[in-house]
Every structure is written in C-alpha cells, then in structure tokens.
C-alpha cells in the first residue's frame, strides 16, 4: 500500500538526514519526499510518500515519532485530505503535432512556462492520477526530461488528525 505521511519536524540542521537515514538504515522505501518551512519558522513540514504493508508502515510512523526532532506524524491513509504534486515536463513535439500538444496541455490545465524552437516546458499540478495520465498522454510527443516536486498533502477542513 502507498501511504502519504506528513512529518512535522524541528527546523534544525541535520533533521532531514535523521529522517532519510532512518528510512535507509531500516530498509524502508521513500518514493518521494518534500520539505518546507511552515508558518512557524521553527518548524518544517515533510511530506513523505512510502510503500509497505501495515506492519511496515506502523514501524515507519513509530520510528519517525521516536526521533527527538520529530514533533508530529500524520499518516494520511485514513484522513480525508488533498494531495498535489507539481511536475515540469519538457516536450519536443514535431511541427505538425505542436497545436495538438498545446491543446492537450490546456485540457490538463498545464501552463507553458518556457518555449523554444524545439521544446515546450509545461508546468502541471495535480494529484497522482492526473499527473500519471498526463505523462502517459504526452509520452508519444517525445518527453525530453521531466522533474517532479514530490507530493504535498493537507487535511480537509474539520478533519481531526490523530
């Protein structure tokens, strides 16, 4: 099962390596990890996407909680939430395909953030399914490279995070 876990941590040097070291040292898997400051600048929020069965994910959340610099851990599995990820994709469609490609990007509410004689760079934001669908659809046009931010997640209003 894939789990999105958000980890509230002290905003101190070395905390990222404590968290990533925990995953590598115990053989847990990280699919994506994103970190940023929160409104309280002494605190950062990490969003980690990981896979594992119930027992492994239970260990992951417990081990995270055990780190002194970790303040709170939320597994979004049972929490109603919104997830987003941003991807920048550089595509090189052939001349004849350009307009079709641009239309496709528009359907997915992608923004062209850079264009040149040979390529377009599209910024696309969405949940996992949307991004996966878009990547599949543009693949035939010739993806030169793409880069993703990793997922971020937030609970919906009124949902209690335990």
């Amino acid at each position: 099962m894939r789990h999105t876990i958000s980890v509230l941590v002290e905003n101190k040097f070395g905390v990222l390596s404590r968290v990533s070291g925990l995953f590598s040292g115990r053989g847990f898997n990280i699919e994506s990890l994103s970190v940023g400051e929160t409104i309280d600048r002494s605190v950062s929020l990490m969003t980690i996407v990981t896979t594992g069965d119930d027992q492994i994910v239970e260990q992951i959340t417990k081990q995270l909680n055990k780190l002194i610099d970790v303040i709170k851990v939320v597994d979004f599995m049972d929490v109603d939430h919104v997830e987003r990820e941003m991807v920048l994709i550089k595509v090189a469609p052939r001349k004849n395909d350009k307009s079709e490609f641009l239309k496709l990007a528009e359907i997915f509410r992608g923004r062209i953030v850079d264009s040149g004689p040979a390529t377009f760079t599209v910024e696309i934001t969405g949940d996992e399914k949307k991004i996966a669908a878009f990547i599949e659809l543009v693949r035939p046009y010739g993806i030169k490279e793409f880069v993703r931010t990793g997922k971020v997640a937030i609970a919906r209003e009124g949902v209690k995070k335990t």
Partner: protein
Amino acid sequence: MKISGAEILIECLKREGVKHIFGYPGGVVLNIFDVLYDEKDIELILTRHEQGAVHAADGYARASGKTGVCIVTSGPGATNTVTGIATASMDSVPLVVFSGQVPTMLIGNDAFQEADIVGITRPCTKHNYLVKDINDLARTVREAFHIASTGRPGPVLIDLPKDVTTGTAEFKWPEQVSIRGYNPTYHGNKWMIRQAAQMIAKSKKPVIMAGGGVILSGAAKELRELAEIAEIPVTTTLMGLGGFPGSHKLSMGMLGMHGTYYANKAVQDADLLIGIGVRFDDRVTGRTSAFAPGAKIIHIDIDPTSIRKNVRVDLPVVGDVKNVLRDILKVIREQKGQWEAVRKSWLKQIDAWKKEKPLSYTFDKKIIKPEFVVEKIYEISKGKAVICTEVGQNQMWAAQFYKYDEPRKWLSSGGLGTMGYGFPAAIGAQIACPGKLVVDIAGDGSIQMNIQELATAVVNRLPVKVAILNNGYLGMVRQWQELFFRERYSHTRLDTVPDFVKVAEAYGAVGLRAVKPSEVEPVIREAFSIKDRPVFMDFIVDWREKVFPMVPAGAAIDEMIFDEEEKKPAKKLKAVK
C-alpha cells in the same frame, strides 16, 4: 560574570551530579581538560583507548543506574567511541559522550583531526548534537542528560567545537527541560492493563519473558511479586538476567539460542506469553513464524517501536515497566484467584522438563571444563559478584552457569555483541561499586580486544578479576565451524598467544594460571583475595567444549541440539596446550 565554555561544561556536569568521567585528552579538548585539572568534585579516569572509555562509562552506568559520561577529542578520538556508543545504544544504556570538534570556522574543511562524528553516530545514538553557539551549551547538556536517562535510555553525543569551549558566556542553567518532540509514555493504558490482568487470570499455561527493561526501570520487585502471586514461571532474556532471581523456584533461566531446554519448551507450549521490557530479538525468538505458536502475547515496553516489530502481539501495553506492573498487580490482587490450583499442572510440567534436561556438562578430572570455572566463580563469590562478560562462548557459559539473583550484577553486550566490552566495563563497574567483587569472564580472543586497559586498572588500583577461559580458539565461531562447516577451522585458531600471566605481570597486575581442574579453586580464591590490583586468571580449558543447548539459526526455539546427540569420531586437530 562570563566564564569559558569549558567551565560552563564542567559546571553543568556538576549540576547533573556527575562524579566520574572516562576519557582521553587531545588537541581540541585541551581547554576542558585544563579545567578538570583543578576540579575536586569530578574525577577523570584516563583509559588507554577511547573505546575503553566508552565501555567503562557503559559498565559504570549499568552497574550503578547512573548516566555514564565520556570526554574524547575530535577525529580519531571521536571515531574510536563509535563501537562503544553502538553497544550502549543496542542495550539501552544511558551515556553522554562529549567529543571535541575542530573550530566551527573549520568544520567541513577536512581540517586536522576532523570527522563528522554527528553524522557518523546519528544512527547509533538516541540523539546527538553539534553545539555551534556557546549560549546553547548549558541547555544542550541539560537536554542530553534528560534524553539519555529517561524513556528508553540510550547514548547521546554532544560535539563541541573548540571555539565553543574556549569562548566565554554567562552561565545560565535551565531549571526545566522541555522538548516538544520527546514525550515518552510512562503509564500504561488503563483498559489495556485490565485486559492484561484478565488474560493472566484466564490463562492455564502462562510464561513471563523478562528483559532488560525490567532492570532499567527498577521493576525487579514488582516482577517478582507478579510471578509469585499469580504463580507464573519466568524466563529472562540475556539482558534480563538478574531482573528475576535466577535461583527462584519459578525461574527457568534464559531462553533463546542458548537458552535452557525448559524455558524454550515452556514458551513453545504456553498459552500466554507476557513479554516485559523485551524486544523479541532474533536470538530469542528463533524462527519467528514458529515462535510461541499457541500463545497469546502481551507485550509491555516503553518503546512503541519494539512492539510488533518482530512478532505478532495480541495486547500491547506501552509504558514504563515498573508502573505497568504495579497497575497490573493492583487488578490481580483484587481478583483473589485460586492461583495454586490453576497452575499446579503447568508448574509440574515445567518441573518435569527441568528434570528431563537440566543445564549440564561432563566434569573431567584431567582437563578443565569452562563451565566448571564459571560454577566455581559462582560458588566462591556466593553469587554476589558483579559479572561482566566478553562475547562468545564465555558469555553464554557465564549466562548459563552463574545465577543472577539481583539486577545490575550482569553486564554483557547483548545486542551488538561487542568483543572487548567486558574488561573496560568491569573497570567502570569497579569504579561505580568500589567495595564489590567485579569479575570479567572472558575468552582468550575477546580479552585481547581491549587488553590495554590493564594499565587503567593498575594505575587506579582497581581489583578487577579477569577469568580467561583460554581455549586457544575463537570458540563460538569454532563451534559453528565444527557443527556447520565440516570442522574447517578457518582462522579461528589463536595459538595460545600471548602468555596472559606475563602480560599481566608486565603491566604490574597479578597473573595466575590453572591447567588442571584441581587448580581452579585455589586460583580463584587467591585472585579474590587481592584487593589492590587487577588479576588475570588464565584457565587453560578444553577447547572442544561447546555451548549447549543450541538452536541453529533459522530453527524454532524448541528444535535444540544437545551435547550427547552429536557423537562424532575423535577430532583430527590437536588441542592446543
């Protein structure tokens, strides 16, 4: 008034009640050592290797229950502490290790004697710090001692750049410690505790499996009360030895790979297993899928990550063992069960197993059996000694043939299995308990891993006794080679070098040797009578002797091998000496 960082540090240590520090000086900690030069309330014990310093602090902590403290220099000084820190981490020993560091300006420049010790020790400490600002120093030390000694204890390292200890600042002692990400659970959930008491009342064949957590939380009394009231037989893990009296009629000794036949049988046949302060290590469980197949498992531990890490658990209780046991006892006392009648047949069964296959060895008149030496040490010390061990056969025999009736009398590297632990740990234990008899039961391999600490023991006039079970081999590895590698003794023969009696004498210690069984007792008695110097006792023992019972790797714990079952033709290899 402003004082130096080094003075702040020592003032903090005094306020934490530190009396002894184990350490080794070097370039970037000169300032700290300079302050210690005039210090009357704190004694620094100079070891001969930084690894020795950490193990000594560890032994000091295990024997006394206090937090052990170390100070070493940067670079190699710091990296030499890693094995000791990992040892303490695996066995949940409270330590605070101070390492010097190059000045903050130079960090990251590959300066002389620079090592990223915070990065290196991150996975083997409970927490660690790099102090970059002298104004954070006092608070950091306060936090470190708090973290090391509370919850599930463990080692904490503080890296001190030179400019932090040489700089000056006002001393501000934080009276309160509050760390928002650190709130151990000390009391068990009430509902869970009632459930646990009910499960105990309903069970017909319960077993208590007690671990190091019982000793760390000071819960030996509560454990004994629970076992006696509800008539539950108790087995301990290696780390739990002494948590329940080994000579008690309900004691089944140790379980696991080299556990007793009856303890392993009882666990496999139980309908309820109560794990108290344990982490279900693989040496205890054997093949986990076949572990305690018929039992419901109650698991009491302060560390939530221990629960459901290795084995399924039916009822988890997170909390300090002492508190949880007290709460369970309250409920149990109200139940007023007819325990004796309920348990009669189960205890009878266990007695039958005890009689069927007790721990044993065959005494020989000509050659010393290592088990005999351990038995004699038990007998002559009347079970009152603090026993330290190295790792391997010596450790297992010391666990099997010495009965530990009190906590903190058994100091052994259980989790990491560090050869070279016992001797420096014995030095630390002797400093913590000056009047007590401290014995390191060692092998001829392990003792050589920190033999330089003889100098520390001699200089400090510490009467530590070392019983070397000298079989000329790395015995436990040799045992595996004999049983599983067709007697191909690849690089396990040590050729009985050096002469340990001469080594001891060269250092100014006493060296004694026993070659015949009749010499064992006189040697031990003579060693125990020496009060002002360390003693090496070199026991030339039967190299063929193996540790039994034995559960082969990957087997269930009731699939044990015994001595009499493997009768093989005479070995071709010649015994050494």
